[in-house]
């Protein structure tokens, strides 16, 4: 007990120190930029496959909207380049000794884009907005857990929870909305959906439906004006077109496919004008087995299938080497990842041996496995429109055939895939992917209570020890202590193989080389977009004020 208290106090100290440290930094931002020789001006043109649905971050759920809106708003906290939680609109915070409440001290120098001052009332409004059942938001879960929200003074707020809740702090990274513009209005119909007002580094300039969304630098930004004059989001629904626009110089940044990355960017046109940036993307691909299906009830069968899956061959052949093998649901390189787990290197002989132990043998001499006279055969499902997944299906079909398992592949349109097969549990195995979110709580995907229609543990994996680990880990705030629960959780997953974890792909970004100050980090590439700059001689776009 003593130890826990001590750890909590040390976390507390760390956060306070962090808060102070950061404040110092902010005062230096302007000077820091001068030192680096950075200059103001120019614009970054980026593209999106679809038009944004609206620019109030909290109620939209499409990535096109979020990519734009995240530059317009701030949360109380944010993530730095190494995915640590750092102050944003809150200049510091304090976690109570019982870990059940957080006191946020807010910055006093923040103004909304329309000039109004930012205060604790805005935070309170945002909290009430999020828990209001009339608000069309999907992100209310974290906020519904708040027991009490109180405004202590115009720049201090306190939130309390019933129990210590580990993801609580990060949940306050949600965009804070302007009370004076939204109060008493129906958010989805508010003009802020089309012309948002936030506190962020960029402010809204113009939106031509289906064509472009333009943001411009916020001169009054509390952490210093971003160097770029504008961010322009072009809506280009076709990836081939986007690539040609990139080659043509009309788009400055684009996520490339492995094929483009390896085979189509070795031309002088590309190498002279573009830099390639890569980092591990926060997602993984997997083969999930329906554990309610008797075929996969025995963990030996799942282990054997994992041994018979050539992960490295999949990465080399389909991703052209741009990815790393995944052994669990966390991103390699983050603190939550446990590398010390059972691994399944490609070994078909071992797979055969394990299957024989489970009763599957070549009894009829036709090279196929049988148990009680029935052949080992099943169907893999995946969704349409993702050629990588289809290719993975073909690869594992080949390699599983070698150990005597017959697999059919069905590729389905997304809505039918989810509604008719996943939600109804009508599948044997699926090839899919998950995003890896920053908070490590695996409740939604792995807790046994999450088995059912519209829920994410659709393979219905259930393990009492894992349930307990998840339930406990959620209430431990100290990362080192919390990690112990998730380390054990990963060991069990690796042993049990309800999924065959395949790989974590690399994000492959082509960026025009006139932009300086760019550095890939665990948080991606654009985390410091307000520090990017273009040397005066290379500037491409000029704007009149």
């Amino acid at each position, binding site marked *: 007990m003593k130890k826990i208290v001590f750890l909590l106090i040390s976390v507390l100290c760390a956060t306070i120190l962090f808060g102070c440290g950061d404040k110092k930094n902010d005062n230096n931002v302007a000077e820091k930029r001068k030192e680096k020789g950075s200059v103001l001006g120019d614009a970054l043109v980026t593209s999106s496959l679809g038009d944004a649905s609206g620019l109030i971050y909290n109620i939209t759920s499409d990535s096109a909207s979020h990519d734009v809106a995240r530059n317009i708003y701030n949360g109380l906290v944010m993530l730095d380049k190494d995915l640590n939680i750092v102050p944003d609109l809150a200049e510091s915070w304090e976690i109570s000794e019982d870990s059940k409440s957080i006191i946020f001290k807010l910055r006093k120098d923040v103004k909304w884009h329309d000039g109004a001052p930012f205060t604790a009332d805005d935070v309170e409004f945002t909290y009430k907005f999020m828990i209001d059942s009339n608000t*069309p938001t999907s*992100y209310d879960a974290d906020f519904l857990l708040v027991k009490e929200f109180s405004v202590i003074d115009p720049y201090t707020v306190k939130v309390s929870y019933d129990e210590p809740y580990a993801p609580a702090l990060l949940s306050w990274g949600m965009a804070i909305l302007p009370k004076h513009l939204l109060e008493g209005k129906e958010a989805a119909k508010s003009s802020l*959906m089309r012309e948002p007002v936030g506190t962020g580094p960029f402010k809204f300039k113009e939106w031509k439906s289906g064509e472009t969304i333009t943001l411009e630098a916020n001169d009054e930004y509390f952490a210093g004006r971003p160097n770029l004059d504008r961010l322009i989001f072009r*809506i280009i*629904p076709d990836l081939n077109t986007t690539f*040609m626009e990139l080659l043509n110089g009309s788009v400055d940044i684009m996520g490339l496919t492995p094929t483009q990355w390896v085979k189509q960017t070795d031309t002088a046109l590309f190498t002279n004008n573009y830099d390639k940036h890569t980092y591990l993307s926060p997602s993984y691909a997997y083969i999930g087995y329906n554990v309610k299906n008797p075929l996969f009830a025995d963990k030996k069968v799942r282990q054997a299938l994992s041994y018979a899956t050539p992960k490295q061959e999949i990465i080399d052949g389909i991703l052209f080497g741009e990815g790393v093998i995944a052994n669990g649901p966390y991103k390699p390189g983050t603190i939550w990842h446990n590398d010390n787990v059972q691994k399944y290197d490609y070994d078909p002989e071992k797979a055969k041996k394990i299957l024989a132990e489970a009763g599957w043998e070549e009894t009829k001499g036709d090279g196929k496995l049988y148990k009680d006279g029935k052949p080992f055969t099943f169907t893999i499902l995946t969704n349409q429109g993702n050629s990588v997944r289809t290719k993975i299906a073909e690869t594992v079909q080949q390699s599983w055939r070698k150990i005597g398992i017959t697999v059919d592949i069905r590729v389905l349109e997304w*809505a039918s895939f989810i*509604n008719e097969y996943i939600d109804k549990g009508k599948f044997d195995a699926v090839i899919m992917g998950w995003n890896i979110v920053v908070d490590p709580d695996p409740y939604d995907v792995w807790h046994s209570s999450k088995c059912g229609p519209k829920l*994410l543990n659709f393979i219905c994996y259930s393990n009492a020890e894992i349930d307990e680990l998840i339930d406990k880990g959620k209430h431990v705030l100290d990362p080192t202590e919390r990690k112990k629960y998730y380390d054990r959780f990963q060991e069990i997953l690796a042993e049990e193989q309800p999924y065959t974890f395949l790989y974590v792909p690399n994000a492959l970004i082509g960026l025009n080389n006139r932009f300086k100050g760019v550095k890939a980090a665990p948080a991606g590439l654009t985390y410091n977009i307000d520090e990017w700059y273009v040397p005066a001689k290379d500037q491409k776009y000029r704007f009149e004020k």
Partner: protein
Amino acid sequence: MLRYIAKRLLGMVPLLIGITFISFVVIHLAPGDPAQFIASMNPKLSETSYEKFVKMYDLDKPVLERYINWLGKFARFDFGESFSQDGKTVLEKIKERLPVTIWLNVAGLLLILVIALPLGVLSACYKDSIFDKGVTVFVFAGFAMPTFWLALLCMYYFGVIKGWFPISGLRSFNYEYLSTFGKIMDIVKHTFMPVVISVFGGLAGLSRFARNSMLDVLKEEYITAARARGISERKIIFKHALKNALLPVVTILGLSVPGLIGGSVIFESIFSIPGMGQLFYQSVMMRDYPVVMGVLVIGALLTLAGNLIADIAYAAVDPRIRYGAKKTD
């Protein structure tokens, strides 16, 4: 004539109800619902959000009840609100997209008329000549070639390598700062490639049609008679034959009215043109029922109107066809 039009208009009402009913039921038969796209398969979303959206969109009510509600609103020309989170009405969404699509389609259709008709007529006059065969190969090449493939090739050559034309989009970033002439040139430049490529693909139909129609007319006895009277070939073709040969074109034009508001999804996606095709495709994929219904109904209305207009225009240009008036003798 007026009675005829009134009769046709009345006949359209049950037709329209039938069309909307079938469309409504069919789009609801497709698996999935709009709430699912907003609130599923995302670990960050809360559990209750799905139910919340289902209630918000009335998805818990039976299809028939929703259809009747929809029909009631439609009778008052209210297409309702889109299910997507931008909270716009269906009409607003269509209004945003319609001008671009109409501009591209009208420009395309006019160009096709201007090019295909002379090509067809001339091929008929010089039947089986090198010219005729060349035209045949040319128009069929355009017809058979996948437009998206040709579009990508053109974009790469004229856009990336030569840099003559912008690759995609409708306007440049600096559009606001251009002079009026500059603005026109900017739009023309941006629409040049899409229009030319769609015209190339659309020449075959009309030019073949004009050629066959012209050949039929040239076989008529009155043409032989005209030739016997020693009238110059030029006069025979342009004065006597052409008029009659072009009559069926009226029908084709009438039928292409609904096509004017429909856009091609692939084409619009490749050239990043925010038109009706994309709107329709996206709303189908997102199961945005009100928008899907809105676009379908407008399409149906225009098809019915186009047919009617074609029939009336036919009566106007072809003396052999008269509606309503019965022979008195």
